[in-house]
Structures are given as structure tokens and as C-alpha cells.
């Protein structure tokens, strides 16, 4: 497949990490296993390994972010890389400099990796297509397209709790339409062999061809939650009331908010996940977000290990040629 080739170098090793769409199962498992090795680094006295010493990583964020950017930064630092954070709000790019010109300038400073977040779908692919051959690109979220490291840290969290993907029933609840997280999660869950993936939302928040991605669509949350092992909540952006997508946050919480009562419909040992930041009382009740089934904070911690794994695999290719061939 020509389209996913861009993620690999000529030796078949992962060079960019842009989307999960098209990646094979062994690559995803490899990322999870590598992350498992890195998970202990954060608990050691000296929280550093020298894998990427001398490498320069640029966090290029065209969209604001706290959690994703800081975990990428921490991951890079724990791998001993130098990190440069560039936050570009959209107003300054409207000065006229094109994305490509900006990239050329940054390349001229001899960077090794761009971690990119951008409001337009396909931005990370575009950058990966145009960077010099020695540079790797990691997608930290592009428009409504993909957020592959978030999906992988979710898979990592699920695996730690549930072990076997092939026996799971997973529900994703909320704004699928505008969610890059949901798209990447769906690809990852399918690739890892989850037999039943449900998405639960009103029609206005579900894109029309969603069933083509291998999921079952539910509009009734109570039906959708029945007997699931994993409940993945999505954040509801406040601006979704605009454009006539939803009547009110109140009605959304009544119909699609996760409450303790609704959670009882899922399996007793079901875990509750959320990519953050959470809107308490909009998509999730505080009692659930802070409750015993919630793994939301674990997700944040696991994000560092996953990002270390992806960075070391893409940037450390030359040093460890065995590992992740296609």
C-alpha cells in the first residue's frame, strides 16, 4: 500500500508515526512492548536513559495543548534528547509565511524530529512528505484525522488491565465526528483484534460512513454500554452547540453523560477512560471520573512511556536495526 509506505524508511523501519490506519498488528505490539520497557524509567531515581543523546526534537504546536505537549517533552527529556517547544497560534501563521517555509527554516537549524500538532487534517502527512530524509515526524494530532500516540497510550492502558484484546467489548462514547482520538482508537482496536467496537452518540456527532470503519453504531447509551469491558469517553467541545449539532450541554449529559448508574450496565470490572481534559458534568460525572473504575490518570502517566517508545523507535532506527520490520 503506497499510502502507508511514507511511515517507513527503505529498510521497512518505522520512520514517521502519523496514523495507525494501515499499520500492521506486529508494529502496534512492538510499540506497546517497547513502552512497557520504558514504563519503569519514570519510577527510578535517575529518570533518564541516554538513547537519544545529541538529538534535537522540536515540538511544533499549532494548536494549544498542555497534556500532550508536556508528555512529549518529558518523554524526549527522559531519552536525553534536547527539546525545543514552538507554539504557533494561528494568528502568527497568517503573517504570510507558509507552513513549508517555516519547516525549511527549522530544518536549517538541524533538528532531528518534529512532533506536530495542527488544526488541519493531513498536516502531519504533509510535513512528513516534505522534510529532509533524516528527519522523523510524529503526529501529535492533526485536525479531525488522527492522534496515534493517544490511541497507543490507550491501548497500553487497556492491555495492562485486560491482557487479551481478542476477548473485549469496547464502547467509545461522544463526539466521534470531530474526534481524531476516536478515529485512531478505532483503527488500533481493530488492528489489535478487538471483536466488538461500539460507538455511542447522536447522529449529529457520528460521521455518515462510520460503520465502514468496523464499528457498531448505537444511539441509546444504555443499550450500548451493556456488558462492555472498556468505556472510552470523548471530550465534548463547548462550541458543539453551535452549528445545531446539539441542543444543550444539559441534554447531552442526560442522554450521553457517563454516570455511576449507567456505568453499572457495563461489566463489573469495566475500566473508564478519557483522553482529557474532562468536562465534569458534561460528558462524565465526577463520581465516575474519580471513581475506582477510572484509569484516566494512568493514561496520562502511560502517555510518557508510549511517546518514549515511538520516539526511540523512529529516531533510534540506525542503532537498533532489528525490531520493527514490516
Amino acid at each position: 500500500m503506497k499510502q502507508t509506505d511514507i511511515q517507513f524508511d527503505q529498510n521497512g523501519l518505522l520512520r514517521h508515526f502519523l496514523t495507525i490506519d494501515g499499520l500492521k498488528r506486529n508494529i502496534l505490539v512492538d510499540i506497546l512492548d517497547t513502552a512497557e520497557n520504558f514504563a519503569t524509567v519514570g519510577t527510578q531515581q535517575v529518570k533518564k536513559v541516554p538513547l537519544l543523546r545529541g538529538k534535537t526534537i522540536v515540538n511544533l504546536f499549532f494548536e494549544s495543548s498542555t497534556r500532550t505537549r508536556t508528555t512529549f517533552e518529558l518523554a524526549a527529556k527522559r531519552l536525553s534528547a534536547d527539546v525545543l517547544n514552538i507554539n504557533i497560534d494561528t494568528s502568527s501563521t497568517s503573517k504570510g509565511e507558509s507552513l513549508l517555509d517555516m519547516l525549511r527554516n527549522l530544518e536549517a537549524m538541524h533538528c532531528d524530529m518534529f512532533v506536530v500538532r495542527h488544526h488541519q487534517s493531513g498536516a502531519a502527512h504533509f510535513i512528513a512528505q516534505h522534510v529532509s530524509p533524516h528527519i522523523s515526524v510524529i503526529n501529535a494530532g492533526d485536525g479531525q484525522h488522527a492522534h496515534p500516540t493517544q490511541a497507543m497510550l490507550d491501548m497500553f492502558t487497556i492491555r495492562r488491565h485486560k491482557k487479551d484484546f481478542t476477548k473485549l467489548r469496547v464502547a467509545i462514547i461522544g463526539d466521534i465526528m470531530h474526534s481524531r482520538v476516536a478515529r485512531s482508537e478505532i483503527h488500533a482496536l481493530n488492528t489489535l483484534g478487538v471483536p466488538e467496537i461500539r460507538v455511542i452518540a447522536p447522529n449529529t456527532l457520528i460521521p455518515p460512513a462510520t460503520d465502514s470503519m468496523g464499528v457498531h453504531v448505537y444511539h441509546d447509551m444504555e443499550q450500548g454500554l451493556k456488558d462492555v469491558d472498556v468505556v472510552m469517553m470523548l471530550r465534548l467541545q463547548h462550541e458543539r452547540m453551535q452549528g445545531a449539532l446539539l441542543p444543550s450541554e444539559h441534554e447531552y449529559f442526560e442522554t450521553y453523560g457517563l454516570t455511576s448508574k449507567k456505568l453499572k450496565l457495563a461489566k463489573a470490572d469495566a475500566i473508564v477512560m478519557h483522553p482529557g481534559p474532562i468536562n465534569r458534568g458534561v460528558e462524565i460525572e465526577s463520581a465516575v471520573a474519580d471513581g475506582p473504575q477510572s484509569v484516566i490518570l494512568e493514561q496520562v502517566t502511560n502517555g510518557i512511556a508510549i511517546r518514549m517508545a515511538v520516539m526511540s523507535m523512529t529516531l533510534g532506527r540506525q542503532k537498533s536495526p532489528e525490531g520493527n520490520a514490516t
Partner: protein
Amino acid sequence: MKLLIKQGHLVDPANNIDGVHDVYIASGKIAGIGNKPDGFKATKTIDAKNQIVIPGIVDLCVRLREPGQEYKGTIASETAAAAAGGITTVCVPPDTDPCIDTTAVAELIHQRATAAANCHVFTQAALTQGLEGELLSEMATLKTQANCVGVSNGLKPVENILVMRRAMEYAASCDMTVFLHAEDPGLSNNGCAHEGVMSTRLGLPAIPESAETAAVSRDLMLIEQTGVRAHFSHISSANALHMIAQAKQQGLPVSVDVSIHHLHLTDLDIGFFDSNCHVIPPLRSQRDKQGLQQGLKQNSIDVLCSDHQPHCADAKLAPFSATEPGISGLETLLPLSLRLVDDNILDLKTLIHKLTVAPAKILGIDAGHLSINAAADICIYNPATNWTVNPEQFTSTGHNTPFTDWELQAKVSHTLLDGKIVYQSES
């Protein structure tokens, strides 16, 4: 100069000719077909053996980018590209900058086109002033003083339905055809890809089919009410085409064209964000493509056109939704159209009809046929030349094509405009 085109296989649907005939040209006009006129002595002979000779193609929708966007293309560069594509007449939509809502702009285009002398250029007048959808343009003046052949609002939908009604009523009283871009802006909602499997997968802002069908349905009501002659440009969905075909059957004065790329590509061709596949209206589903091909078979599509929109490289170098829509299509229109004949969707004569006399009729101009005394606008092509599309070799300054590396058959060898050779292939 007296020109003889020898031994070519002539296909002229307007005159029902399909066979090997010599073509005699004198004083820029067709002097004889098959029979040599008395005293004719050729000063130049083109050997057209094993080649096909057709009337010069008439392209209903070609953006030359001048005035206003000369960095994308000029009247000289794009009419030369038309000639290289076997096209001898183009119709320019009014969305130049400034737009064609004054006679001065239309005259400027006509003058520069005459100076370039590559191709006949006709212009559409703006339907509303500044294409803003509020005030009527001076249609009657633009028709009588600047020879505009129709009115259109370019790619800007007229949102106010009352304004649209009035514009149609007024155009009808001027006896002008209204060219329509069917798009409901509320439903298309700044989208950039067909709402379907690909927009869902790639998270691209989507344009539903209903953005087109709702607009077609609205406009058909108004056409029926106002009695205006109307032409739907670049219809992209099977359902919209079906609605127009039905209206035509019921006797409404409507016609319709489809851009050649909608007959060959679907949204799947976007792959991973190929910005050369960013067009408006968007590439639609496989079902739509098949529906359009079916419509071609059943003769519900009147005309095929290139919808030529040349861009500079920068326009396509950005994340998909930030790129500018459009395809540089003049030089691939004929070979891509002929591919439909190879695919048994329609026969050669019907195809040539849809590329020549049918669009000429919609523009109300005398072109697209090889009758005696008609202007000698002629395209000669070799039906068996295999070539690979390489935009670097385009005559157009716009290299934006999704057909790069496509293997095509048929290449234009000569293009004649008023009996003069305006293009001749190197090989």
C-alpha cells in the same frame, strides 16, 4: 493559404460524417470535404493517414486566470494549452479579478485572446454585481456590447433565493443562458471532500451529496417558474444528474455538463491527502462515478468539459483543506474522454458530439462542425500514440493534475484555428 488535410478519418457528428475524407481549407474556412474545390492548389499538406480529424473542441468551462491571477496562468499561456489539447473554443466563467461585471473586463479578455491567437475565447457575464449575489449585473449591456455568451455567478452560490429568481427572470428577458454551479453553501459548510468513507477516515470537512441535490432542486423550481434557459455546470453526483435528466424529459430548457475528472476519479483517489484531488465539486463515491457513466450512456449528459483551473505549485502545497481546489485539465480532456470510448461507455461519434457541436449550441455560437464555409477550427489526433501524463511537459503553467503517470492513448498532432496551424506536436 490553402491547406489540404489528406487521408484523415473524419468524424463530424454535426454533418453525420464518419469516414476517410480529404479536407480542403481556403481563406480560413472549410472549402471542401472529400471533393476538391475547383482550382484548389494546396500550399501546404498535412498527412493525416491513420489519424482522426474532428472539429476543434469547444470547452465550456476554462479559467485563464487573467486578469487577476497572472501568477497562475495568462490568457496567452492557457489558450496555448487549449491549442495543445485540440481545443479551439473556450468559455471563461466570470470569476476573474476584477470579475466580468463590466464590459471593460470582457473586452480586455477578448482583446488579449485575439492577440494571442491560439483559441477563440468567449466570456460569461457575472450574474450579480461583484458576484456578491445581491444586485443584478448589466446583463443586457454585457451581451450586446461585450458579446458575453451567458451569465453565471462562477463558483459563488446565490444564497438569496429571491435574488436568484429575479436574476433568472431578467436573464430570460435578455435571452441569455444562465450557467449554474449547484451548491448549497449551508450544507457544503466549507467542506473540501465528499461526505463518505474517505472524509470519515481522513477527518476531512465534508460536503454531502445533498449540497448539490438541494441546490439543483431549488434551481429547477425557479427555472420552471421563470422559463429561463439554464445549464448546470460540472454536476458531480448521480442523483443530481438524474433530477436534471428528468426535468429535461419534462420539457424544461436545461442542459448539463460533467467534468472529465468526475468520470474517472472518486474520493478514494484522495488516498492520504493528495491535494491534486481537491476539487469543487468534490470527487464523489464509486456509485456516483458509475451513475455519471451510466448517464453518459443514456445520453443524459450533454457536454464533457475540462473545468480547467491552473494553479501555481504553492496553491497545492499545504494540508489538504488549506489547498486551493481545481485541476489543470485542458491537455488531458481529449485523451481522457477517448478512454470512455475504449471502456465502451459511448461511441466515438457521440463523444465528439459532446465535445464539439453540443457545447457550441449551448453557447449559442457557430462552432463545432466542419460544414462547407464554416471556420476551419480543427483538431487532428493520433488515436494510437501511447503517452504518460507528465505535468512538467504541460503547455499550461498549471501543473496541478491528479492524472500524473496515467498511461493515455491518443495525442493531438495538429490544431487549426481559422485554417492556421496553432499547435503541432513535436513527434
